[in-house]
């Protein structure tokens, strides 16, 4: 009995980052749709702009940027909300949004899980820079057409609207997205195409929350972390021991590497330069 409990605790511990992430993602989705007795709803609106705890305005800076480029005048509430959101991600790291907040991440992770379960090998290789191309397109199109170009297809708010009114008009698009990640391209949407991810990547370029390898001599060089990483190139320098922290802003801080690493070499830390800034000569191991 005790050993079973122990095993369960160990299993939970092995997935602690994934569990924390899923919990937060699900809580955020529920905050918009569930009425708590006596209190009502915690969050109103959707992820493009919302009101939290009846007072705190939050606005997606990418949506607001499209709106301003399309010709909208400045408005106080939206700017305050966008400043809060942008400040948070600029300080901690932009793509935290992708793995901790965005509900589409759950959909694409499910697609990847199924893809691995069924051992589907066929893969359409896309450039990871396509998302930056789509980001530029979304901004240019907003200027040209005077509407919020990405919001015409943005699956994030689409999913939220579908949930709010339990309508199904957008479900075909979400299903197509799932099938694309499942059958066509491995991590195709979040890892290659989504311009929201690209926007947050640039926004959080100097983000300070980083996967660090301060105990790098504990690393056995198994590269298991790279195998589970949604953006494997960000970990390469760390595994090659050319860097002590992941500094590439593609990193989503999902913690998959921390869950996977059995040697305890990796940790998630607020990093202000200092030790982990070391780069250059690889550490020679005996």
């Amino acid at each position: 009995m005790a050993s079973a409990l122990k095993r369960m605790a160990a299993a939970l511990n092995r997935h602690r980052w994934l569990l924390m992430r899923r919990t937060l993602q699900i809580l955020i989705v529920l905050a918009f749709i569930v009425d708590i007795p006596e209190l009502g709803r915690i969050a109103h609106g959707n992820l493009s702009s919302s009101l939290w705890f009846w007072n705190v305005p939050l606005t997606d800076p990418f949506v607001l940027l499209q709106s301003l480029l399309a010709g909208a005048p400045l408005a106080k509430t939206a700017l305050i909300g966008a400043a809060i959101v942008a400040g948070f991600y600029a300080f901690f790291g932009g793509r935290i949004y992708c793995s901790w907040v965005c509900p589409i991440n759950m959909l694409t992770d499910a697609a990847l899980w199924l893809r691995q379960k069924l051992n589907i090998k066929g893969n359409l290789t896309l450039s990871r820079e396509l998302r930056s191309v789509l980001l530029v397109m979304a901004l240019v199109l907003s200027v040209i057409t005077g509407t919020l170009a990405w919001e015409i297809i943005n699956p994030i708010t689409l999913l939220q609207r579908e949930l709010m009114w339990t309508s199904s008009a957008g479900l075909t698009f979400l299903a197509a997205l799932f099938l694309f990640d499942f059958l066509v391209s491995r991590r195709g949407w979040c890892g290659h195409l989504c311009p929201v991810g690209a926007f947050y990547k640039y926004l959080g370029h100097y983000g300070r929350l980083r996967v660090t390898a301060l105990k790098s001599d504990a690393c056995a060089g198994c590269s298991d972390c790279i195998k589970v990483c949604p953006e494997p190139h960000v970990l390469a320098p760390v595994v090659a021991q050319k860097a002590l922290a992941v500094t590439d802003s593609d990193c989503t801080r999902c913690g998959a590497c921390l869950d996977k690493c059995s040697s305890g070499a990796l940790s998630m830390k607020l990093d202000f330069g200092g030790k982990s800034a070391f780069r250059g000569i690889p550490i020679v191991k005996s």
Partner: protein
Amino acid sequence: MTKPSAQKESLAVKYGIEQPARRKAFKRVFRHLGVAVLGTAVAQAAIFSRPARAAKILRPPGALPEKAFDSTCIRCGLCVKDCPYDILKLASWTDPAPLGTPFFVARQDPCRMCTDIPCVKACPTGALDPLLTDIRKADMGVAVLVDHENCLNYKGLTCSVCVRVCPIRGEAISLKPIQNERGLLQIPTVNPDKCTGCGTCEKHCVLSEATIRVLPRELGLGVSGANAAGRGVW
């Protein structure tokens, strides 16, 4: 492993290309630029060919003119949530309005014209103009008696429901007597300067299809022209 690249470099030297790395970088940049330009052209065509907003799609009070509204509204739905009568909805792909923008359909559920205008207060971007503080100055559209053939008042009856339900009583719609071969008719007549386009008259029209309808102002009203014939000068 090194053979192909060595071969490539020798080809580069053979054809006098001095910096293959730079050439590669240019190629990469231009490929992305090509994708971006092509994609923008196609997407722009797709965006411009979207269906226009249907006439029955009415915006909440204080909404900016349709073009400005389309760029200023960030599709968050805070107005929808603050409407105490739940008349508003964000457009989905099957609704004839830009995706995610709020609207109501008068025949289904008209605007109740709350005096504190909570939807306008909820808007974070000013797409619903915060300068609108008097709901009687709202402009969601204008009521037009579109069908004279079927309107009961035109048939000589005194239904007059539209006049009686109008929240701007006696001002926005009133009965104007007209004498014709059927006798004295009481004709519901809209004063466009007072009508806010709330849609209460359309909602309550007793016929199975309303004969009085709220239309966006540019569809519902004529504008007197620049020349004597009443038309705009070409």
